[in-house]
C-alpha cells in the first residue's frame, strides 16, 4: 500500500486539493459497480472496525455510510446520542477517548456543532470522517454532488452551478462551494439576503438575488432544504412566500434558455424550496445523487484506510 492519499481524516473539502478530490471521484467509479452486483460485497476493509457516531438524526447519510462500510466488509457499530452515555452528559472528548480505548479504526461523526469532527480528529488516532458538523461542512455530500454532476456533464470545469436557498445554515452549501471552485466550476448563491452570508463572495462566488436570474445563468441548480425553524428565527416570513419568491418551480425552469440539472441533498420540503413536478421531473438527479452517495463513501473509507488509489473493484 502507498501512503494515505487523503491524510488521516476527511473533515471537509476546503482542506483538500483538486487532485485529492478527483482521486476520490475516480476511486468511486469502480465502486458504483459493486452496488449493482447480486452479491454487493468486496473484502477491501475486512477486519476494520468503524463506529458511526450520530449526534443528530439522520436517515440518508447514516444508512448510506452503513451500506458503504458493509459493502467493503468492515465491522460497524452505530452509536446514536440517545440511548448512549452521551445522553447522560458525557463530553465529546470522553466519548472519543472511550471509543479509542476499544481500538477502533475509523469514526464517522455527525454532530450539531461546527468543528466537532476536527475536534475529534485532533484527539484520537483513528481516522475521522465528517458526516456533517453543524453549519460547517458535509464533505461526502459535496463529493456525491460533484460525482453526480460529472456523470451528467462529463466534467466539472466550466460548469455554472447555482446553490439555492438557506446557505447561511447549510453545511452542504459550504462543501459544494469548495468542491466546485477547486474543480474549476463557477458558483453562484441564490436566496433571500437573510440566508446568504455576503462575506462568501470573498471566496470567488457570485451572489444572485433572484431565482429567475440564477435559473437563466446556471447549468445546474443545487436546491437546499429550507428548514422549517428558519421562520421562527425571523429569516423568512413564511414558507408560502418563500415558495412564491424563491421556489424552484416548473414554470420558472421552462423559461430558462437551457435545460437545467436539478440536485437536492434531501430531505425535500415539497412545495417549499422546490415543487414536486421538478423533483419528479426529467431533469432531477436527486435519486442518482443517493446512489452515488454509497460509492463516494466507499471510496473515502477505502482511501482513508490506506487503500491504493489504483485499486479496481472488479
Amino acid at each position, binding site marked *: 500500500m502507498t501512503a494515505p492519499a487523503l491524510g488521516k481524516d476527511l473533515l471537509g473539502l476546503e482542506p483538500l486539493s483538486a487532485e485529492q478530490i478527483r482521486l476520490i471521484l475516480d476511486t468511486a467509479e469502480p465502486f458504483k459497480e459493486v452496488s449493482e452486483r447480486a452479491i454487493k460485497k468486496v473484502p477491501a476493509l475486512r477486519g476494520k472496525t468503524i463506529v458511526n457516531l450520530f449526534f443528530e438524526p439522520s436517515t440518508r447519510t447514516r444508512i448510506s455510510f452503513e451500506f458503504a462500510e458493509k459493502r467493503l466488509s468492515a465491522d460497524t457499530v452505530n452509536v446514536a446520542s440517545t440511548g448512549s452515555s452521551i445522553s447522560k452528559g458525557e*463530553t465529546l472528548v470522553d466519548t472519543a477517548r472511550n471509543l479509542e480505548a476499544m481500538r477502533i479504526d475509523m469514526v464517522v461523526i455527525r*454532530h450539531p456543532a461546527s468543528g466537532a469532527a476536527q475536534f475529534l480528529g485532533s484527539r484520537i488516532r483513528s481516522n475521522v470522517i465528517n458526516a456533517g458538523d453543524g453549519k460547517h461542512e458535509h464533505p461526502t455530500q459535496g463529493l456525491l454532488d460533484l460525482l453526480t454532476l460529472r456523470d451528467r456533464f462529463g466534467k466539472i470545469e466550466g460548469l455554472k452551478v447555482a446553490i439555492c436557498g438557506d446557505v447561511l445554515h447549510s453545511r452542504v452549501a459550504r462543501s459544494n462551494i469548495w468542491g466546485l471552485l477547486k474543480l474549476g466550476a463557477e458558483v453562484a448563491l441564490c436566496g433571500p439576503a437573510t440566508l446568504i452570508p455576503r462575506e462568501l463572495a470573498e471566496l470567488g462566488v457570485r451572489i444572485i438575488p433572484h431565482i429567475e436570474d440564477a435559473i437563466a445563468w446556471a447549468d445546474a441548480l443545487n436546491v437546499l432544504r429550507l428548514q422549517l425553524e428558519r421562520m421562527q428565527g425571523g429569516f423568512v416570513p413564511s414558507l408560502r412566500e418563500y415558495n412564491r419568491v424563491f421556489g424552484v418551480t416548473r414554470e420558472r425552469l421552462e423559461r430558462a434558455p437551457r435545460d437545467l440539472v436539478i440536485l437536492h441533498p434531501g430531505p425535500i420540503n415539497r412545495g417549499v424550496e422546490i415543487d414536486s413536478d421538478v423533483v419528479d421531473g426529467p431533469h432531477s438527479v436527486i435519486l442518482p445523487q443517493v446512489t452515488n452517495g454509497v460509492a463516494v463513501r466507499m471510496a473515502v473509507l477505502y482511501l482513508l484506510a490506506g487503500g491504493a488509489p489504483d485499486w479496481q473493484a472488479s
Partner: protein
Amino acid sequence: MSDLLIRGGRVIDPSRGTDGVADLYVKEGKIEAVGRNIPAPPGTMVVDAAGKVVAPGLVDLHVHLREPGFEHAETIASGAASAAAGGFTAVCSMPNTDPVTDSQATVGFVVRQAIRAGKARVYPIGAVSLGQRGEQLTEFGEMVQAGAVAVSDDGRPVASSHLMRTALEYAKTFGIPVADHCEDLSLAIGGAMHEGIVSARLGLKGIPSAAEEIMVARDIILAELTGGHVHLCHMSTRGSVELIRWAKSKGLPVTAEATPHHFTLTHERCEGYDTSAKMNPPLREAADRDAIRQGLKDGTIDCIASDHAPHHYDTKEREFDEAPNGIVGLETALGLAMRELVAPGILSLSEMIKRMSTTPARIFHLPGGTLAVGAPADVVVFDPDRRWVVRREELHSKSANSPFIGETLVGQVEMTLVAGRVVHQRKDRSTS
C-alpha cells in the same frame, strides 16, 4: 517589612511626567524619595534596578476572579497572585460571581478575601442590577460604603436603556462610573465569534460589530442625557473607536478600555476551532485591531484592561459553540503591550504605563498610578528588553486558558510592590 531602595532604574511616572534614571526609596509602605544617589540607611533592602523600568504598579479595571462560585477556575487569592506576577498592584473584580456581587455583604466578602490573600489590591465592582438580571438597581450607596469602586453587569449588557439611564443618574450621587459591556443581545445571541469571512467559512454564528456599536452609541447618548460617567468595557471594533472619538470631541463623560487580545489578535485566530481564541467581544478584523491601536495612541481609548477570564480546562476542551468565552490575561498583558505597542513605536514606554496604570487609576478614582512622594508604594519593576516564553505551568492563575501559551513576549516583571511589600519577585532574580 523592611524599607527598600530600588537603585538605578529608569523611573517612569506618567502622573508627574517624569522619565529618567533615579533611585526610589520606599519607607513604611510609602514612596519616601525619588532622586539620584539616595543613601541606603542600615536595614534597608537594596534592589539593583539598572537596565530595568521602575513604574507605578499596573492597574486593571476589568478582571474576573471567579470567587465566590467558581473557585475551581480562580480564587481571589490566586487571581491576586496572578495580578502581582503580571505587575498589577490593583485590579477591579467584576461581579458576575455566584452569588452575584450585588450587595454590601458580597462586596465586603471580596474585600476581605483580598486582604487575606495579601497580594495585589482587589477593588470590587458591584452589579448594576440585582442578580445581573437587568431589572432592579442594586444598592449602589451601600456597596460603595463596603468598598465597591464602580458598578457593572459585565458578562451581560445593561439591555434596558431605562435601567442604564437610571444607573448613570444614580451613580453620580456616589461619584462612580457605570462600566458597560456593550452588546445588543438580539443581534449577538448564539454567536460564537466575529461575524465575517472566517465565521462564514467555519459555519459558526457570528456576532456583528454592530452589536457592540449600537450599545456604544446608546451609552454615549445616555451619558449626554444624564451627565453620568459611562466606562465602556473591552472595545473591539473600529466603529466603536469612531463613536468614542465623537463623544470625546463633545466633551462627554465617556471613558473606554481595550484588551491586549483585541490589540493583538484577529478573528483568523479562531481557525481550527481553537477555543482559546473564543472570547466576548470576539476577536475582530485587522482594521479593527489597528483602530484599537490608534485609539490607544491618540487617547480615544483611555486604558488597557485585561478582561482576565479564567476557565477550567475542561470547559474549554469542548466544541467551539459550547466553550465559554474569555482568556486569562493578567500575566501576559504587560508583555503584549510591550511587544505589540511599545516595540513597534505605537506607544512610548511612558505612554504605555500611563494607559496601564495612571489613567485607569484616575478613571475609577483609585489610589495608585503614581510615584509621587507620600503615595502608597505600589510599584512594578520590569525588564523592558527581556524576552520570555509564556508557559502554562508557570502561570500563577489557577487557569491557563490563553491563546498566548508558547509565545515569546517582551518585557518581564522583576518585582511587584504593594504598599512597599514585595508581593511578587521573579524566581531566578538575585538581590543584594
